[in-house]
């Protein structure tokens, strides 16, 4: 799957923003988690948070949600912050039905994710 990584500057802090494209399902979930791993390894109590920009994700299967659970667990263990931004309406519905909005914080935009996670 195609994943782009960029930096968003909030309060003079460079925040890693990971933006996957398309579907996170059986064929792509492992690649997605592998792509996250280097940035998850950088997280810590004094490190900037990681924002996942889901604006270009149009489908996520349970195996993709599991990848997010693993990422959230790793972030928590390191004392770092992680959040998801800009969910498409249908993906947001899946999050709600799966109760995944209780597993990983969701925000309306990358900007609001950066603001809240840095607060």
């Amino acid at each position: 799957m195609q994943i782009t990584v960029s930096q968003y500057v909030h309060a003079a802090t460079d925040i890693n923003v990971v933006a996957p494209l398309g579907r996170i399902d059986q064929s792509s979930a492992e690649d997605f988690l592998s792509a996250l791993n280097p940035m998850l390894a950088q997280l810590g109590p004094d490190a900037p948070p990681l924002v996942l920009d889901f604006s270009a994700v149009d489908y996520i299967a349970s195996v993709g949600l599991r990848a997010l659970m693993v990422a959230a667990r790793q972030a928590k263990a390191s004392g770092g912050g992680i959040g998801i931004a800009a969910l498409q309406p249908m993906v947001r519905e899946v999050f709600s039905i799966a109760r995944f909005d209780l597993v990983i914080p969701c925000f309306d935009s990358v900007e609001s994710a950066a603001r809240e996670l840095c607060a």
Partner: protein
Amino acid sequence: MKIKFWGTRGSLPVAATAGEVRNKIIAALTAAQGRQFADAAAIEAFTDQMPFAVQGSYGGNTACVELTGNAQSGELEHVICDLGSGLRPLGQGKMAEFGPGKPQTYHFFVSHLHWDHLMGLPFFVPIYIPGNRIVMHGCHPNLEAAIRLQMSAPCFPVEFDQIGAKVEFDLLEPGREYTIAGFKVRAKLQLHAGDSYGYRFEQAGKSVVYSTDSEHKLDNRVEQNAFIDFFRGADLVIFDTMYSLADAITVKADWGHSSNIIAVELCQEAGVRSLAMFHHEPIHDDAKLASLYDETRRFEEITRDGRAPLRIISSYDGLTLDL
């Protein structure tokens, strides 16, 4: 083939509280405000169009599902999955229908030996009737020991050896196909503490899978594929949807249960026609279960992706399905 759900609750029998019944009455009277009903039929028609969580209830008996085939032999044989507390009303129904003077054969398929799946047997009246035949089919080598244990002091006042019916135990081998009471039956090992087994029943071109108390690990694709094969093309899959996906893979991981999300995904991949949500969480009231049902239907709709629709059913005590 006909399927009757006698018990659909997970883990522990429950009953609606006085407060829940009161809320149903308030909702019904509020909906009826200002209406006039000409007769009892008009009241019944009004009741029937109310939401299920108001005019009915999912019930609170633990797992017990009856299969009635179309092509059984002339002998009176009954096929029942699990012996949860729903077995008590099933037994009362059989006694009312057949009485004590007409010997029956009851075939039980036991998913596993946890108490909520066995607790109905001491209250199943036909076991006390001489002439009846009870056959316990299962894959646990200690099935007989577990059945005997709950009918022994100090668990229960009637000892297993005091029952009047003839009881036989039939140890099945997972993966092997058997013909029992007119059904082709195959068992599959499932992930649950102490192991559980799902059963696939086929008869006259129809197929039903009973798969409860089964956890599905999302990082085990081999096992997921094995379940997809087990469910393949079934007319009905009865599936443990006790938890949300988030709970099932985080705080309740390794508790041996599954979710509505995984149920829908596996059934979609297997080309199943109908999915029955089963083993309802005992802390959920009727309103919550109705809400989960709506969400599951919506999830199926938004993930259908060009496939034939998967019919979603939320099973309740007393529900009968014709396949």
